């Protein structure tokens, strides 16, 4: 067994030091009747090259953004990940360390988290960002729980523009609590209907996704006004993090908590995880923020360094009175995002966002001009939008697939009123030519 150094001779010596006759005796405290007396029923082991071959064959049965032109987004985005990211996060010093409990030998991880917190604050326009959450969905759920703690209220107003899976996760998280969830319907242009009529003095927060699940840009100042008029909090969850490079930061539009999914920042799609959620707030609410936080300090010789801080919010200190049960975060993925943001930097990130926007506008213009296709929602969008197709979403997506294209998300189950339609996303990975071929396939005009 190549992962285990001790040989039979080592084992013999160690048993002698312990003072027991054999390995079996190590388990003497396990009652006889509790023991497993047969081998575990899992397949026999295979060698390194066999396991590589076996899993390569499994992987080959998954379509991916290398094998197809990719227009499927809906919360997970096919952006390019620069090569430096994987090279750096593969360094064992990052990969095989754990939570930086011992700051003197964890400054690498701690400083990177401090840099992440700084850049997430800049992007969202907020004061404080934590050291990441599991994903965008749990970040949204934790944001709502946080707003309930801050306001000591229990009614939640969510817009229908939230990703359906985020809404599901939110329902799961609040199920054991005495909380009420109200969903504001989508209006005809794809944005939320006016929110104010749904907010009252019992409302803890209004939660809005920007851009919405269907790609439309919500009116955040109006949502803020609706929330603040009743002293409720505005929570903004960011569906496509790249949009933050282009849009006015939610923190400047009245958001009290901004959360979201940062997978777009250099984290591979990896079939939906591991990704990386973020959660930010204003400084006066920092003690209600869940998750780890890194702060700047000095060592005993006055040199700058970083530590985990404000831990009295956390489960390992506060146990059942903690702000959350969260323990690990998504350390390695936040490192990917931090490296990505450094590489793209002040100008590159904005330019990339404009490329995404331009591709989407080109695609929309082509769709408007194509018989059989239309854009049912009129609100402005970033890099994702709904396309009405002539026959059925299944048929349209099948035609795309036959042309080597994963054409988007079938919306039948998500937006019955828009059926038949497809949610299409255009990142920098799709060429103008691929867009032309998608439009042709969705419309069926190439038949």
């Amino acid at each position: 067994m190549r992962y285990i150094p001790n040989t039979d001779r080592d084992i013999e010596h160690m048993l002698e030091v312990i003072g027991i006759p054999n390995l079996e005796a190590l388990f003497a405290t396990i009652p006889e009747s509790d023991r497993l007396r047969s081998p575990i029923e899992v397949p026999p082991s295979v060698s390194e090259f066999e396991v590589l071959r076996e899993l390569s064959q499994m992987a080959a049965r998954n379509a991916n953004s290398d094998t197809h032109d990719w227009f499927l987004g809906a919360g997970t985005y096919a952006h390019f990940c620069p090569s430096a990211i994987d090279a750096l996060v593969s360094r064992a010093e990052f990969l095989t360390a754990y939570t930086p409990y011992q700051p003197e030998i964890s400054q690498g991880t701690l400083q990177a988290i401090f840099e992440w917190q700084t850049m997430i604050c800049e992007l969202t326009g907020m004061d404080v960002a934590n050291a990441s959450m599991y994903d965008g969905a749990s970040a949204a759920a934790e944001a709502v729980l946080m707003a309930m703690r801050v306001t000591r209220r229990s009614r939640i107003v969510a817009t229908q523009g939230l990703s359906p899976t985020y809404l599901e996760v939110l329902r799961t998280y609040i199920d054991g609590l005495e909380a009420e969830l109200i969903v504001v319907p989508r209006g005809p242009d794809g944005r939320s209907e006016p929110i104010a009529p749904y907010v009252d003095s019992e409302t803890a927060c209004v939660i809005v996704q920007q851009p919405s699940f269907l790609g439309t840009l919500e009116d955040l100042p109006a949502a803020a006004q609706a929330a603040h008029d009743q002293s409720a909090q505005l929570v903004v969850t960011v569906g496509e993090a790249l949009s933050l490079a282009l849009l006015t930061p939610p923190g400047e539009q009245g958001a009290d908590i901004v959360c979201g999914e940062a997978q777009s920042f250099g984290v591979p799609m990896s079939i939906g995880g591991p990704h990386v959620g973020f959660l930010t707030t204003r400084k006066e609410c920092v003690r209600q923020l869940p998750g780890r936080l890194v702060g700047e300090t000095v060592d005993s010789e006055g040199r700058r360094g970083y530590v985990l801080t404000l831990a009295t919010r956390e489960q390992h200190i506060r146990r059942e009175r903690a702000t959350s049960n969260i323990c690990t975060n998504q350390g390695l993925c936040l490192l990917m995002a931090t490296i990505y943001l450094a590489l793209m930097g002040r100008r590159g990130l904005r330019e990339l966002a404009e490329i995404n926007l331009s591709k989407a506008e080109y695609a929309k213009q082509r769709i408007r001009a194509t018989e059989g296709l239309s854009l049912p929602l009129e609100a402005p969008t970033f890099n994702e939008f709904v396309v009405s197709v002539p026959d059925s979403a299944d048929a349209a997506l099948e035609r795309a697939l036959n042309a080597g294209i994963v054409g988007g998300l079938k919306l039948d189950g998500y937006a019955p009123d828009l059926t038949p339609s497809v949610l299409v996303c255009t990142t920098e990975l799709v060429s103008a030519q691929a867009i032309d071929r998608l439009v042709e396939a969705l419309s069926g005009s190439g038949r």
Partner: protein
Amino acid sequence: MSDQDRISEVGNTGAGTTYEEPLLFELSREGRAGYSLPELDVPRVLPEEILPEGSVREDLKTLPELSEVEIVRHFTRLSTWNAAVDFGLYPLGSCTMKYNPKINEKIARIPGFLLAHPRQPDALLQGFLELCYELESQLAAISGMDRVTLQPAAGAQGELAGIMMIRAYHEARDEQRTKIIIPDTAHGTNPASAALNGYKVVEVPSSDEGILSPEAVAGAMDDDVAGIMVTNPNTLGFFEEHMTAISEIVHARGGLVYGDGANLNALMGVARPGDLGIDVMHFNLHKTFSTPHGGGGPGSGPVGVKNLLAPHLPTPVIQKEVGAEGPQFRLENDLPHSIGRLHGNFGNAGMFVRAYTYLRSLGPEGLKHCSEMAVLNANYILARLRGTPYRIPFDRTVMHECIVSDAELSETGVTTADIAKRLIDHGYHPPTTYFPLIVPGALMIEPTETESREGLDRFVDALLSIAEEAKTDPDTVRTAPHHTRRSRMDETKAARHPVLKWTPEPPT
């Protein structure tokens, strides 16, 4: 020389290739770039022209401007400030810091895993769905559970899912139970997960032997108790010898038994939680199944259940259907009694690939050998510390980790934290300290199976030399570490005056 120039001049410390490393923002120089973007092949759109007024942001002024080489050096230098498993023993108790095989990483990067999308149609995702289905089956076989969900993103989310399923089970029977029993040795996540579900926590003390007694559980058990959360082996490193009896007591009053699988590394091929009356448990793929800890995650916390809880599993579940064209795997969302979803997608899928690779590499004998060697290593450390200044609070055969206490050293004025910090000077990441809470001055040592005998000897020798030093030269221990690039950090200052992000210095 401007302030900014001076900071980045800090660079080389005069100590060879040891570098001080400024923040990205301090290194930034206007005009540099680390990105490469394709030529735009569609008409360029001006955001201000098509987006509503006021919705386009200004400059991202805090983001740095740096070339790729500067960024690579920045993070490479930062990495050298970390301790890690690939450097050496990292005996952080309860975290199972075992070696993370390189083949796991290689396979997780195959495009069919790395570049596939969670919402692509089932038919285009058959390889992954099969992997999930097989991983679920293998985890079930290892643990003696009937069904497994891979969805929870970490152990703590697995606990949350498990307690939610317990609640759903009682609610389906129209029972309103309000309490969860938790032993005093439990991880902090246990009470926090119970509280997130609205349960009141009833703490039960461990016996003089460091395990749960059936009497203590019987005393706490009543018809308001929804269940008990037990970590087995517990955080003292002991097998809960009365587990079966405890499960019977809880079941007799209608409660369910949650098993915290944080310490499963001791039991593979030896005993199965499912055979001890556990109804629901979580696994930590980043502990037992060798996925990397990544500086604090991603973890992955699958949950196994007995059939009685299967209707409450999170959605979706993966189903296998055997047809004329061979097995097909599909996602089932229609589970009316499900607790719902916990993750936006399938969970930390990349970790499933790594854990499955590990299971295929080990097989039944390999898994059992891991547990045997993990337990051997922990008992070897304990045996070598017996009769030394370290006190052994409960001197019995342990499983995968052992607890010693520094209590006898306290008269020297040296604390547990001091010993931990001094271990760093000897080249070790310290063990978990001050936990479990019931042992004053605890050092919780988990060597794992991937350490050699002589490696453990050197670690024990380091502990013994520190104990000696605590008597002869306590100041050196109290002010450790001395051989790191930062000495002891002022954590009080960090908490009193939180500085949680970089801000540019105002122009002078």
